[in-house]
């Protein structure tokens, strides 16, 4: 038995099929799409909010999706301890929905950026990062125009204190420098987890680096981590 994944499809999601591909073809685990109008998440161990432009990113990225029926269900799902992974636009939805603190603003430099970046894994004691070494530097692609993580300084300090920063942008020598920060995020934040540790949002795309032929496999371990964790929690060993 293994963990069951639900991949949410909003109008305008465009990494939904990519996430499903990785879950099905790379991890070989059960996964299916969840339509944005659905409020039923029963039977899922993990819910993935994929990248894209939900509702065209009109108003603000993620703002309209945050009010959708499925996100109402995701809130209950998360409150009950379900694992939620928001990637790129999914991260934006999670902050707009109040499931994660902070906000994602227009990139410093104002343009969309699609490129590989280096990330430091700050914690390996989350369901999403158990297979990484703490402090390990990994490579993942980003593709966003609104990825500058912002939070008031006291909130950012609080995040640091509570060890909620999971991924941080670094340069290729593993240091937090201006060159290593592609969008101007505060504290170089690329991904954060909620206080309870079951909701992760990150701007980089782990699904784009789960197969060697696409240039790297550092993202694969994120899915494997959450898969194992969820299967274990559900009493099903993968």
């Amino acid at each position, binding site marked *: 038995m293994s963990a069951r994944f639900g991949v949410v499809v909003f109008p*305008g999601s465009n990494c939904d099929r990519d996430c499903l591909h990785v879950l099905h073809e790379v991890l070989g685990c059960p996964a299916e799409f969840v339509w944005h109008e659905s409020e039923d998440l029963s039977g899922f161990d993990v819910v993935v909010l994929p990248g894209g*432009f939900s509702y065209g*990113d009109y108003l603000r990225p993620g703002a309209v999706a945050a009010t959708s029926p499925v996100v109402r269900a995701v809130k209950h799902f998360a409150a009950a301890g379900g694992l939620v992974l928001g990637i790129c636009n999914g991260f934006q939805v999670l902050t707009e929905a109040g499931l994660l603190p902070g906000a994602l603003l227009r990139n410093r430099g104002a343009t*969309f950026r699609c490129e590989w970046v280096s990330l430091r894994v700050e914690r390996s004691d989350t369901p999403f990062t158990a297979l990484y070494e703490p402090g390990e530097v990994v490579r993942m692609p980003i593709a966003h*125009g609104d990825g500058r993580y912002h939070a008031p300084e006291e909130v950012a300090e609080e995040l640091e204190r509570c060890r909620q920063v999971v991924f941080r942008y670094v340069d290729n020598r593993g240091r937090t420098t201006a060159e290593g920060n592609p969008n101007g995020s505060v504290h170089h934040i690329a991904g954060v987890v909620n206080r309870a540790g079951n909701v992760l949002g990150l701007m980089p795309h782990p699904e784009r680096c789960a197969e060697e032929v696409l240039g790297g496999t550092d993202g694969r371990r994120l899915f494997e981590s959450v898969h194992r964790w969820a299967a274990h929690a559900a009493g099903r060993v993968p």
Partner: protein
Amino acid sequence: MRAATRIPGWQAAGLRREEYERVCALLGREPNAVELRMFGVMWSEHCAYKHSRPYLKRLPTTGSGVLRGPGENAGVVEVSPGLAVALKVESHNHPSAVDPFHGAATGVGGILRDVLSMGARPLALLDSLRFGPPDDRHARRLRDGVVAGISHYGNCVGVPVVGGEILYEDCYRANPLVNVACVGLVSSSRVASSRATGPGNSVVYAGTRTGRDGIGGARFASEELAEDAAEADRGAVQMGDPLAGKLLIEATLEALQSGAVVALQDMGAAGLTCAAAEMSARGGVGMVLHLDRVPRRERGMTPVEVLLSESQERMLLVVQRGREEEVLRAYRRWGLRAEILGEVTAEPLLQVYDGRELVVELSPCALTDAPTYRVPEQEPPARRALREVSLEGLPQPDLKEALLALLRSPSVVTKRPVYSQYDHMVQLRTVVGPGSDAAVLRLLEAPPRGLALSADGNGRLSYLDPWAGGAAAVCEATLNVACVGARPVAITDGLNLGNPERPEVAWELAGVVDGIADACAALGVPVVGGNVSLYNESELGAVYPTPVVVCVGVLEDVSQVLPTGFCESGDLVALVGGDRVSLGGSEYLRVVHGRVAGAPARPDLQLHRRLVNVLVRAAQAGLLRSAHDLSEGGLGVALAEACVAGRLGARCTLSPQLFGGRADVALFGEGPSRVVVSVPPERYEAFAELCVREGVPIRLLGTVGEGELRVRLADGELAVSVEQLRAAQEAYR
């Protein structure tokens, strides 16, 4: 009375007097006001190819893998048993001149729907762009607007931009070229059609609502740009909505899955008029349409406005009678509008009702049966003189400075600042993204196969020698595809020229098409579709005749893809391919000497075919470590690029006899069918034998090394550190 009201109706609609007479003869009566406007757009150059059709007949369009050739919304060619690729290129030049952001964005949307019309899911986009030099503020504004527009639409719609090119010339200052190509994937047995058939079947409108935008856009694209175009013609530019574009793709693919769709087509240029007329004419049927059922964005729209609107993100479908609900449901599920407008009729007559009033009644074939024109072709004497200019007395510059100047040239520098604004990875297929000779996508449906894609064209060569420019575009695109190890299987071509009513433009068009036709015939690569954009003229004159050739190749195993850059110190560096080089029309002559003149080297098409074969076979046999096609800047720039891409140097020697002994010709002369390869020393003999056996010249140049590019020439030595080369190449402006 004001002068404008005295213009006869046919003229206001954009027709010539003899065209109006032809309309009357076809109908057996005078058209009414609505019909007249429909003829005006359908018989525009943009929709009817009046000046280009006679030439396009020369293109070879068939081949064993071709499932659909020109005449459909996109060509379709099989790339693996049961699996096919739909491809098409289209221009959005005039709209982009007026409103670069929306002009380019809607160009992306339009080409996606052409590919979608074949039942294919769009997999990738390529953009071939031309602008005035970036030191011109206006040209830079156009470029940045176009790039932002492509980024806006492409990123949101979730189709990666995996390749393309950006070249700069003075002639594109006021009239930029924005050619966008799309490749989609469809099962061979499920290729869709635009042929309306089956009397009684329903005609369904799907997508967003119809507004007043883009009315007369096709006609606007068929005239020269007026000086005040930016102000006067903004209403002719459509506004794109990428979210709606994305939903339309998903909903249409879902609707097609039902099996109830008989035919479909994008409502693009000339909107509902064109879709209804072309679909009916292709199927030899008619349609009854009710305009009051068309979902509208605003009140008070006239029948002409509804019929001619070019509002984006709309499709017209023919659906099996009784199964309409399956199709309507798919669109509505995705939040789009879908309405039954009418039905297909056996009698080939297009009947359009506004309420109960019959406002149009004519043969759809009349709308698609525009006249063609042949303008006497004449080469301008000045052009010939320019081509025959002798370049022998040209002063020799400092070679290192010349090389660095070429690398800094806006057309040669890295385009990373542009393509990093495009999502080039979504859909998880991109094995090689932008910045290489060709992009490579994996075919998840037929592993380990992959597709290689490249878009190429050089207007300067075509200006000096149209045949050479047309042939060179095919040669470069096919060679780029071969350089990653893929076998070219089909091309789509976009032709961009000036006013075809002028004999010199007719001469350019004839030459460019002949060049493409000859090259494709020699290579056995069919042209499965294309686009012609004419009247690319402004007060600054016509653009260079600019062919853009987009080639699709098949790679047997994506894990064998060859990189552009050098990989291993100690590998041998060789130049493979033709000996024909010239400074005529070269980047070097333009950048270093400030001139556009001379005769470009004409390709040896048989040699080119052999070279493509050698590369594909050598890549499959694992003989090569890297391959890089020579284009702008010749051998010098190609070596520099291979060094920078691989972060390695090279030591090479160019023999004095080579290329007439002139160092600048040897280093920067341009010619088709040439590739720099690096080869592991132990495999060099096998590779050289293959070249000799196949009749492809090969010259050993030197070895891959560390730190610097060093080229020994008859009269001295060129030495530049890789770091310096990289810095020059990064000088994006």
